[in-house]
């Protein structure tokens, strides 16, 4: 068992190309064991491709990665026994029942001892007892997701790779799901989860923001928010006006987001009198609104980190 403090996954210059397209672009990873580590990024940013390389399904075009010190290229088979993987799309068999799916996976992983007892245990943990004879195809999104996680954790893997596990479930199921992830992490498992939900990303112990195949920011969510390369101003009372358009035209503004009656303005930190400039601009157009400096959210971090200029494009 890997205790906390050890490294579960390391990657150096990990790269994957599909023809001319670079899906994953020289990523370095050091993921500690016993933690929940998140990949935050938009669709098509290379999160899934990275996960697939880590479980040996795809070969890296360049660079290398080790899981538990084993090469993902040469020791994929040994890694697979210690790993649970939950693809983005529900990948169990829809024409098999809950129990049949679980027994099949138990056989594939060669579970030792009382297999039935282990399956029963998983059924209780993942609240599947009422669904034993139900075919997976007729289950709700949340039920399918619980079944998929039960199947992925059946063999008590040391590493769990979850590819956007909550994209098809309701908010309550998402909350329950994360509760379970923390329980698994407490039990010593390392969890690597990809998401495009900010609230989920914020719950991770460690986080990598990925855009266009590159890792553009990394750290704990708190450190990322504290170290954001922008000043955030909140403007209240300017909703319904042309303020968003006017503010966007300022060269030092990286982005404007409307949140209900408030506008969130991401300003370049090099501009010292940003607050005064914003006030002047609003006053000039007879907009009566309050402007104040505020703390960065993870979404602000994401917007700043994935700015086109940041990615080397205009």
């Amino acid at each position, binding site marked *: 068992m890997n205790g906390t403090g050890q490294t579960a996954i390391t990657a150096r210059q990990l790269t994957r190309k599909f023809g001319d397209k670079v899906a994953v672009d020289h990523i370095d990873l050091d993921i500690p064991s016993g933690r929940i580590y998140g990949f935050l990024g938009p669709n098509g940013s290379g999160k899934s491709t990275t996960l697939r390389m880590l479980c040996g399904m795809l070969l890296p075009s360049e660079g290398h990665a080790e899981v538990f010190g084993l090469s993902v290229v040469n020791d994929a088979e040994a890694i697979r026994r210690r790993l649970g993987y939950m*693809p983005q799309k529900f990948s*169990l068999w829809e024409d098999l029942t809950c129990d049949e799916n679980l027994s*099949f996976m138990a*056989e594939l992983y060669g579970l030792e001892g009382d297999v039935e007892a282990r399956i029963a245990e998983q059924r209780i943990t993942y609240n599947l007892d009422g669904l034993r004879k139900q075919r997976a195809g007729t289950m709700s999104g949340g039920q399918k997701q619980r079944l998929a996680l039960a199947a992925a954790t059946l063999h008590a893997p040391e590493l769990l790779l979850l590819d956007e596990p909550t994209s098809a479930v309701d908010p309550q199921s998402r909350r329950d799901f994360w509760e379970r992830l923390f329980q698994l992490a407490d039990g010593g498992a390392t969890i690597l989860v990809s998401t495009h939900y900010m609230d989920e990303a914020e719950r991770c112990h460690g986080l990598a923001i990925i855009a266009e195949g590159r890792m553009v920011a990394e750290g704990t969510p708190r450190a990322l928010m504290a170290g954001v390369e922008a000043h955030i101003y909140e403007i209240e009372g300017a909703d319904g006006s042309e303020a968003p358009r006017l503010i966007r035209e300022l060269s030092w503004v990286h982005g404007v987001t409307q949140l209900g009656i408030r506008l969130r303005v991401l300003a370049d930190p090099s501009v010292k009198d940003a607050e005064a400039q914003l006030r002047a601009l609003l006053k000039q157009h007879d907009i009566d609104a309050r402007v104040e400096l505020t703390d960065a959210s993870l979404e602000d971090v994401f917007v700043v980190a994935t700015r086109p200029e940041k990615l080397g494009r205009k």
Partner: protein
Amino acid sequence: MAANKFTAAVRRLRAVATKEVRQLSRDRVTFGMIVGVPLMQIILFGYAINYDVRNLATVVQDEANSSMSREFIAQLKATQVIHVSYTTNSSDELARLMREGRASMAVVIPRDFERRLQSDTRPVVQILVDGSQPQLAVVAGGIAAVPLLTRHGEGPYSGGKRMTPRRIEIRTLYNPEKRTAVQIVPALIGVILTMTMVLFTSGAIVRERERGNLELLIATPLSSLELMVGKLLPYVVIGLIQTTIILIVGAWLFSVPVVGRLVDLYAAALMFIAATLGLGLFVSTLAQTQFQAFQLAFLTLLPSILLSGFMFPFEGMPVAAQWLAELLPLTHFNVIIRGIMLRGADLPEAWLQLTKLAGFLTVMLIVAVVRFKKRLD
């Protein structure tokens, strides 16, 4: 350690096969097709169409060996219906060539050919026809009706008269009543097996990919070989069940006999199942969706039905089509199965066809395995 590894592999393989059977039993349409298709086809193909035949492989036993008999053979050749592939002096060898299916027709000219021609009322020539193949008996009838005249319009042995057709005796071996069902049923086994093995298995493998199950399977300790074998095994059993259905229905409805040994028949069916499974595997590596797999499967099925000698005699086809037919496993299986079921041939006698099937299997497996590995990447 090695034993443990093996046990684990067998356990995974068994799990895959069990899952496949379970899924299949819930897919009522497919399950119905497994039984329904053989029944439907055996009734549909109960009637065959006759076509002209040329260049039949023929063995000639010329006991007279006179200028007249040679002239007669030349006349037969001139019709282009027969091609003299073998000449022999031994009745045993003639029988062997026929039984092995190397010759479809035999012409026996008796020692007293000339005498019978002049005065005798007995048949002048005997033509033996392989009745296990469709339409050949009809063709032989055509030969007997050929007016055997010389260039000058005068036959040296008929005194200027036409040789009357009834004076050439035609005997249809192995299928004396010339019943179509007798020719169709054995070949139908091959057609049905081709359908099951190529259509169902390629669909079953592609389905895992299409529904995203493969992505999960790749991340488990299951190897691609275990996955393939586990998924294909149930279809081997299904193929044998279908063979049995056809044999029973063929015997019951159409009184089609099994002259040879059942063991040989099932052994030949297994060899053919293996070869067509190879084809099914190959198709599954080409197709991305089940729909594509079905289209590709039909692409292989149609030539199999048309060119394999199932519907039309192999000898009647243009050379290019014959070359294509040589590539189809069904062509060779038809020769084997007709031999065993109708002519009572032993399996080892079909060594040439068996070798071709084995060669086909080897090539398909190599291509499929190479392609499937790439696909995982």
